[in-house]
């Protein structure tokens, strides 16, 4: 039994079938990559996990409870965090605040009014946040406004915001898109280090270098259907996968 079980998920937009009977079983502790050509339905699938979209039919079970029909913040509180394709961060706030917010959310739950304490005196939370910023290499910039970061740094920040919550499941939507080779390698190292913490991860990625250096299992999505699934080395040689990529709209 995996930590995330997706059964027969269907989703259409108007006449377009974005997901067709998708089944997925993510093992606890695994790094599960989902690959596929553009428009295969990868992001749609992730959106169904975090409450942004609701599938037409099917079920998404996480750790024994359904993720469907509950609000995004409840899904996060259940232990699912997500990094977006375009970083979603608190642009007007400093980096340290960006990380403190998820830390507090983890500690105090979805809604707590602590209007008397001082953020600048919350040593425990602050230490934790600074620690994670060090992990992602942003410690020096901690007082900067998040908006002033480079794109790569924004991603790293978003990753830090997810990691600090120690989620059970981390969803990564193209974590290295638009990064330089060096940045990409740094990110891979970082993700590998997290791997040691035992966080289950689902990665959507175009960069095969990233996928094969990280993934323990790969599902291939094409036109809304899972066409292949298995260990990285199996997928590499799978003719269906090559067909999907070469014959797909991608090229």
């Amino acid at each position, binding site marked *: 039994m995996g930590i995330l079980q997706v059964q027969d998920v269907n989703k259409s937009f108007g006449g377009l079938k974005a997901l067709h009977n998708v089944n997925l079983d993510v093992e606890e502790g695994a790094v599960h990559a989902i690959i596929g050509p553009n428009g295969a339905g990868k992001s749609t699938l992730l959106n169904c996990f975090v409450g942004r979209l609701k599938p037409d039919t099917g079920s998404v079970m996480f750790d024994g409870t359904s993720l469907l029909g509950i*609000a995004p*913040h409840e899904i996060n*509180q259940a232990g699912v965090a997500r990094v977006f394709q375009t970083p979603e961060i608190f642009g*007007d706030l400093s980096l340290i*605040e960006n990380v403190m917010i998820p830390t507090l959310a983890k500690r105090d739950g979805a809604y707590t009014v602590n*209007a008397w*304490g001082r953020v600048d*005196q919350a040593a425990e939370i602050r230490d934790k946040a600074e620690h994670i910023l060090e992990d992602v290499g942003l410690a020096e910039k901690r007082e900067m406004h998040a908006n002033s970061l480079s794109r790569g740094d924004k991603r790293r920040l978003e990753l830090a915001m997810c990691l600090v919550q120690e989620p059970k499941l981390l969803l990564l939507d193209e974590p290295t898109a638009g990064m330089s080779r060096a940045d990409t390698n740094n990110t891979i190292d970082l993700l590998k280090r997290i791997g040691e913490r035992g966080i289950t991860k689902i990665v959507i990625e175009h960069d095969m270098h990233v996928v094969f250096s990280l993934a323990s299992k790969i599902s291939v999505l094409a036109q809304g259907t899972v066409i292949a699934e298995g260990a990285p080395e199996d997928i590499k040689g799978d003719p269906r996968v090559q067909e999907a990529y070469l014959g797909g709209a991608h090229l």
Partner: protein
Amino acid sequence: MMSKITPRNDNVMMGLFAVAVLTMPIWLMPIGASYPDLMQKFAIFGIFAIGFNILFGLTGYLSFGHAAFLGVGSYTAVWSFKLLSMNVLPAVVFAVLVAGAFSFLIGFISLRRSGIYFSILTLAFAQMSYNLAYSVLTPITNGETGLQLAKSDPRVVDALFVEAGAGIPSTNFFGIAMSGYGGFYFCAILLIVGFYLSLRITRSPFGMMLKAIKSNQNRMSYTGLNTRPYALTAFVISGMYAGLAGSLLAVTDPLAGAERMQWTASGEVVLMTILGGVGTLIGPVLGAGIIKYFENIFSAFNESILTSIFSFLPDGLQDVVVSVVGLFVGEGWHLTLGLLFMIIVIYLPGGLVEGAQRIRTYATKKREKKSAASHQPQIAE
């Protein structure tokens, strides 16, 4: 730039603020604003604007209906004077509670939408309150005339202890009369308390969450935070500030009129906040002060005052100057206000606080240059 945020610096700022507020009767003297009523208004609208800023400055939700809570606070306070006691304590407490409840209702519905849709929802609720208070609800609000005290009011608590006097009694805080300077210091202390609360909120984890709402609501919910109750809490808190301000209006002057709830009154607090500096601590208080100063002092200049001011000029020139200046004061004070809004927002988008910061940065730079220049010979010594 601002100095670093530490409890110590905040306490220093608090201290300076408190001193500045309490010494208003002294330093406002030269500009002719040191009489009780205007200083009361500075404090009261300062409170209103501080509360508004907790919603608008922190969460970014622009309410166009905050005057409704001000009005509700006033009505509650006057009813408390009429039914219970002329002591202001119950009036203030009830006003804050009722305004809180009222803002909870309106906030609960309005916060289902964001952006300008939210603004229009709050505006609609406030305008409904105003229109109804002016007409159909007259039994509760006394309509156009405004809710007033009457000699025949029951005042049940007071009636237990005191013989009714010849006239209508005045409001008091355990015997301290709330008109004149007594009223000013009462409002001033509440302003200081209100400012301190807003400071604590701004520095607190809760305040950080509110800023997060303004910054990115999506990220907030994917971070496991339920944004709406946070926004609603901010809305209710700022509604309670408005209710407090409204009750103080009644405390210092026991009359509550419907026009307090009109959209222009809601607009006024928006203008105060932006004028002073949205999201800053001191800005809203400054903005409130400036607008009230204009309303009360600039509007009072008339030809004879101007003539005496410019009497040092030669006759012909004096007439010209008086007629030109006359356009901007007295009946033309709106014109000055309009121009002020435009100039501030064009050249100082961050409001007066930004202006002050710029001056400080400029001064610091100059000083640094100077000290750099004067440093050399020192080393030589």
